[in-house]
């Protein structure tokens, strides 16, 4: 009987701890499939964050380091500088990357650190139970913005992909989403391109993935995908924000 589908061996057999309908599972698979297809599983080193994906080292079947909250790009820098031949990536959420770890991500990009960052933006703190993130939309209710995010009080949501694209050291920056099949296919192509950018030594690469959080958004998985489409994509436009990989 012909095999039509099998799980990539670059994901372990551990049962995911994510909530039903959460986009993390999709992105994990995309990352692992890209590593497999590029044949770099034995070179890859994952640096995982603090947040919902804190256990990602249980799932990515590659050497891994668990970083302190927000520090993954600095940890990845240390690894890459010791073993430049490794393919080093960070996997970070919006609290980790866009709040407590802004200095580390900005300076990793600024140095043109030859690492890849997978940045999950779901507009909320998931693991601690639904608090406001820097990416939370204006008016969005969370446990620490119970009356909705007030722009005058907390500022507008931060667009990390656009911001990092302004930095000379970044080579490839794209924003994608995993709310429907078409977008998932695009997301995979972007992630693969980001790893290729690193393999070719072209500089810092980051893929911002718009994802959902049905539990903390208080929606069903299907509703959450629709909410993402209606609310997040208009504020966080998809597409390539920067690509210097074709330049010499």
């Amino acid at each position: 009987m012909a095999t039509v589908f099998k799980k990539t061996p670059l994901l372990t057999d551990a049962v995911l701890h994510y909530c039903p309908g959460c986009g993390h599972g999709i992105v994990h698979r995309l990352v692992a499939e890209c590593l497999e297809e590029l044949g770099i599983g034995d070179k890859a080193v994952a640096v995982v964050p603090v947040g919902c994906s804190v256990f990602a080292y249980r799932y990515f079947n590659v050497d891994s380091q668990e970083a302190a909250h927000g520090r993954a790009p600095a940890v990845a820098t240390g690894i890459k500088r010791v073993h430049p031949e490794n393919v080093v990536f960070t996997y970070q959420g919006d609290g980790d990357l866009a709040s407590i770890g802004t200095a580390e991500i900005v300076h990793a990009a600024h140095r043109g650190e030859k690492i890849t960052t997978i940045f999950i933006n779901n507009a909320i703190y998931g693991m601690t139970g639904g608090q406001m993130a820097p990416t939370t939309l204006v008016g969005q209710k969370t446990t620490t913005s119970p009356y909705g995010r007030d722009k005058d009080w907390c500022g507008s949501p931060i667009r990390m992909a656009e911001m990092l694209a302004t930095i000379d050291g970044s080579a490839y920056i794209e924003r994608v989403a995993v709310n429907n099949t078409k977008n998932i296919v695009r997301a995979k192509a972007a992630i693969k391109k980001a790893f290729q950018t690193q393999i070719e030594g072209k500089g810092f690469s980051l893929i911002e993935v718009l994802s959902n959080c049905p539990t903390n958004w208080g929606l069903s998985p299907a509703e959450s995908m629709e909410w993402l489409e209606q609310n997040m994509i208009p504020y966080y436009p998809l597409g390539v924000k920067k690509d210097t990989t074709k330049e010499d």
Partner: protein
Amino acid sequence: MAKEFMKGCEAIAEAAIQAGCHYFFGYPITPQTEVPEYMAAKLPKIGGCFLQAESEVAAINMVYGAAGAGARVMTSSSSPGVSLKLEGISYLAGAELPAVIVNMMRGGPGLGSIQASQGDYFQTTKGGGHGDYHVIALAPSTVQEAIDLMQDAFDLADMYRTPTMLLADGTIGQMMEPVEFKPREKRTDLPAKDWATTGWGPNSNRPRAVVNSLYIETEELQEMNDRLQARYRMIEEKETRVELYNVEDAEVILCAYGTVARICKSAVALAAKQGVKVGLVRPITIWPFPKKAVHDTIAQDSVKTVITIEISAGQMVEDVRLAVNGEKEVQFFGKPGSYCPTAEEICEKIMEMRRA
């Protein structure tokens, strides 16, 4: 080998390179900036990596990544910078990673001053960061000793898979002394770093490497802590170091470490001229603290007066008192901030505090 005349910071950096440390991540802060400067000049020439991080926080996390990748790696800073690194040091301890941190102490709290101080004893020996951990802390009192201890620091870190700190002060960092880099034999008894993240696949002859300090299950975290504590007991047993100077039949015992200890040696000579026999107990490891040596020296029948001297409001004195366990009174002389007592002042204090 001929002696060289070197500044403490530069000698420490050279000692690290000679100990096989080819990776340095740091941030400028007085009075230790000559360490990164020396590394910036030397490491690129030997295929190593010097990187000026965006912050102390980033620097210690780069150290974490490099240590997890199996490298001999270090960072260096001074008190306010070390405060920022404490998060990372706790993670290094929890992930059981070997790394070396230099603290060239300056006056605090806050921004404090840039002059020498010993105000970070508590921070260094009582944890500093969160959780039940220790760092091995080596406290040199001369530039030569800083070199020798720096080289030992990397071996100790590798042997016990623990962050190790060289705790010096601005005086050691800024002064120049004749030094010698003695050729050292490479230790062959250090454990292999088969836990390092170097890339793994089905054909690898080791398990998949995960560098981590997260143990969400109570039992697992307990197991990790038990392992650390057992290791700390072993370090206490095997690695405690102390210098006893002129202590036999001494009437007065001084306890001091680092720069203050060497000044005490001058005070010992001054007191001798006045006919008072003074000895010095100098912890070389401030963690593990040489409890037994301190106790036994002070417990001698001849000892009538015990004075701990520090550039602090009195930090190590607590460990001295614990070691003496109430058997004798332990007095304190010192000031917080950056005020370093001279030998003459110490001698005067000895005469004042001496029991009739």
